[in-house]
Every structure is written in structure tokens, then in C-alpha cells.
């Protein structure tokens, strides 16, 4: 299971990478594997939206299931991955890279303290197994 070291994680298997106060959000390798082949991605927030931690930012459909992606952080949406809906398979092949979903300018850095670091996330997954 691929768990990059520069990310923070949620219990819903989303990740956030924070650089210069902007958090990039996506779903983890574990999540994409659970969902199996992703056939559809819909980003449900738009650039400029004020969003809160826990809001849905995207909907994923695989051949077997539909899932929402919840935001790990609050703030203002500064960018959405426009190309992802045209290549939903990217969520399976490159969940931590090309398949990022939205970028959020953080309004509350303290929220990051409530998220899991890679070690905790690895333990969290192990406990679910």
C-alpha cells in the first residue's frame, strides 16, 4: 500500500498536501483500490467557493459503487482538476499525482492537527484490515 510521507490523511481515506497554505486534495491508494475501476468523476465545487471541512467536493463512480470525496480542510477553492472528469481512470493509476481533485486555500491551519500523519494512517488501515 502506497502511503506518501508528505501528506495528511482523513478517516474517509482522503489526503491533503499543503504547500504555502494551499492544500491539494485527493483520495488515497487504499480508497481507489476499494472502489475498483473508477468510471466517472464529478467535481461538485467550483473555483471561488467557500468550503468547510467535511463538505463534499467530488463524486466518484466505479463499476460497483458511488462515493463522495469530503474535504479534509476548510477554506476557499482556488483550483479544480478540470481534466480529471475526462480521464477518471487516473484515480486508479495515479491517486496521489494526476488525480488530485481540488486545491483549497486554507482558512484554518489548526485543522491539519486533527488529521492523521502517514504513520497513523498506516496504523488506521492496519486496524481496519
Amino acid at each position: 500500500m502506497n502511503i506518501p510521507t508528505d501528506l495528511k490523511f482523513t478517516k474517509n481515506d482522503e489526503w491533503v498536501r499543503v504547500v504555502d497554505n494551499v492544500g491539494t486534495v485527493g483520495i488515497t491508494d487504499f480508497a481507489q483500490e476499494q472502489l475498483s475501476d473508477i468510471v466517472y468523476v464529478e467535481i461538485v465545487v467550483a473555483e471561488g467557493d467557500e468550503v468547510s471541512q467535511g463538505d463534499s467536493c467530488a463524486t466518484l463512480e466505479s463499476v460497483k459503487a458511488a462515493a463522495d470525496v469530503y474535504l479534509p480542510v476548510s477554506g476557499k477553492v482556488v483550483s479544480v482538476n478540470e481534466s480529471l472528469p475526462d480521464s477518471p481512470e487516473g484515480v486508479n493509476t495515479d491517486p496521489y499525482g494526476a488525480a488530485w481533485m481540488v486545491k483549497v486555500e486554507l482558512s484554518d491551519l489548526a485543522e491539519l492537527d486533527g488529521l492523521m500523519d502517514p504513520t497513523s494512517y498506516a496504523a488506521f488501515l492496519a486496524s481496519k484490515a
Partner: protein
Amino acid sequence: MFIPHTEADREAMLRTIGVDRLDDLFQDVPADYRFPDLNLPPAQTEMEVMMELQRLANANEGISDLICFLGAGAYNHYIPAAVDAITSRGEFLTAYTPYQPEISQGTLQAIFDYQSLITALTGMDVSNASHYDGATAVAEAVTMAYAHFRGKKTKIVLSPSLHPHYRATVETYNQGTEVQAFTPEIDLSAGPDALLPYIDGSTALVIVQYPDFFGRIYNYTDLAEKVHAAGGLLAIAVNPLALGLLTPPGEFGADIVVGEGQPLGIPLSFGGPYLGIFATRKEYVRKMAGRLVGETMDNRGQRAYVLTLTAREQHIRREKATSNICTNQGLMALASTVYMSLLGKNGLQQVAELCYHKAHYAADQIAAIPGYSLWSNSPYFHEFVVQCPLPAAEINAHLLEHGILGGYELGKDYPGMENAMLLAVTEMNSKEEIDLLVDILSEAPHD
């Protein structure tokens, strides 16, 4: 097989929830209402009950007893005997969409054929497996448009010439939601342009009817462009039979096409079962409610049918699905499929032409009777509004005495139109019947 709970099961359940007796669960119902005195007549034998029911049934006068000029959303058409023969086959009649649907290839193929015929008829990309009836299909269009804009647009503009029952159903479906569906008070004689002042950036959906409730035919291309320019969607409710003759609404730029499928081989009956047609463009397919059957290849390279894009549906997406009403009456979809297949493209066109020409003959004759006139001079299909010299209810009573089921009394839904009657003429009405109608209408004011 249904296996009821045993006495032991019941006792275990009652113990679990801490109740002594089953009756204790009904304490909230006032005692007087728990076992009310039903005041029933003495018990009767099966034979007596049968005779009583027969007597009640014979008090009805149906379309086989009367000459019918009533339409207003449900129409008297000829249904070839083969429709009933095919849909009554055990394989179809008793089939319920199974929970492993792919096991029922025949059912899925019939639905796939239905979808294919509806898309061809409407000029749209995709059709679902149908809804309950025209009214619920219209309500589902509202739900879909609301879901499409993720709740950010809440205004729904309903044309006043959209069937009053469809508008009432939209209202029922949206009680307690953020959706604001309304019918602007505009001049009923005006065309679709009169809706434009009510369409703005918060409008999710505009719904018009084609032919409209008053039978009129409009080209909605311009309306579609303006709705799209304002960022909304356009739904057109159709009479599918009229599409045998008219330009498909897909060519106007409609985003959603809905309609009552009853004219396609489904008998008239009070309360249904009827057929709710729902078609849309490919880009909206994931927001569409209901079942969708697709064609594919199995692992032996044979053609096979599957339920496709099911992740849209309530059993997977649960509360986030566009709609939690995915049920249809599959047998009605099948009946329409058989009807359309038996008639074919030319047959459907022929039925539509017969309706059109007979209706126009009737309208011309009626308009020539002193005291009667046509309410509109817009092009129409097989239904038209007649202004009568007396209240339509009085005219209808007179017609009924002569064995004629007259038109829909528009005063019921449109205050001020008490003297107006909506008459429908189909291929079932002979020239003699139409001439009789004209004669009785001529006499009506003098009786």
C-alpha cells in the same frame, strides 16, 4: 414464499422491545378508533357478491358505451389485438425485474427496445426504462434539473399550458424542498415567448408541453436558446403519438423530453397503470433517475443486455441519488414497445395523420355552428378548444343524453374559461360520429 412470524417469533420480539402484548403497540390510537364498528351488511355468498359488483360495474358508462371526444392527456386509440396477446404471455406478464436482472435477458431486451424506440421518436440520446405516468415523469424532470445544478438553481418555470395535473404532481413531489416551482400568470393565448420575462439565472428548468394542454403546436427552438442563454434547462412534455407526425422535440434543443405514453397501446383506465416517458441528452445521463438497459457482449461474444450505469441509482447512491423512485410499470413499457413495433414508423405516422385530419374536420364544422368558435387560431394536432354559447358543463350534460362523452371542461382548471371545452378527436371517431356531435352541439343552445 412468504413465511409469517410464528407465535414464538412474536413473543421474542415483544420481549426485546419490552412490550407485553401486541395490542400495547396500538395505545397511541384512541380506543374508539382501534376497533370501530364497521356497520357492515350481513355476510353474502360469493354469487350474491358477484351480482352486486356486476350491478355496480354496469352503472359505469365507458368508451365502449359512448362516443368519446374526451382527451386532455389520455386518449382513445385503437389497440391491435396482438398487443394484448404478446404482453399477456406468461414470460412477460408475471415478470418482475429480478434482483439479478441479467438473468432475465428477455425482459432486458424488451426494455432496451423500448428505450431505442423512445429515443428515435423524441430525437434524444437516451431514454430510461420509464416512470409511472406522464405526471410523475414531469416531476422527475424537476428533480433531475435540481440535482444537475446541485441545488444552486431552485426556480422551476411551468407553462400554464402544461397539463394542470402534471403541475399539481410537481407541487406534490416538491413539498418541503427548496424547489420553487411556479406557473406564471400570463395570457393563455400567448405563445412560449410570454414565459421569457420569468426566466433568469436562478431558473433550473422550464417546462412546456407539445402539443400543449390546449392542443396547440409551437416550435420551441427559440425558447430553448433563450433558456440555455440564461443557464437553465428546457423540458418538453410530449404526446408521443403526435411525434409520428411532428418535428421531434430533440431538434428544438430540449434537454429533457417527458410524456404520457398511454396513447401508445395502453387502454384508458382511471388511475392507470400508464407509462411515464423520460428521455434526455447523453451529458445528463448520470443525473437521470430510473433503470437503464444497455447492450453489450458476453464472454462468448454473444449479444447480451445489462442494467448499466447503476451507480446513479438509489440502491447504490442511496440518499444522494437523483430520485428514490426508480419503479416503473414494465408491462406498460412493453405494451408501448409492442404497439410501436406493430405499427412501425409509417403506421404511427398514419395514426397521427388520421387524428390530425379528423380533428381538423371536426373543428371546421363546429366553428361554423352559430354561437360556437375556436378559442385559438394556432396550429393544433388532434385537440382544440371550443368556445360554447353556454357553460361547457351544460353542453356536456346535453351531449351525454345523446350518448356522447364531450370535451374537458376547462373552467375546472382555468377560471374564466367556464364556457370553453377541450375536444379530442382520434382515429376512433368516424365521420358519422363527428357529424352527430356537430348536430347535437347545434341543438344544445335551443333545448
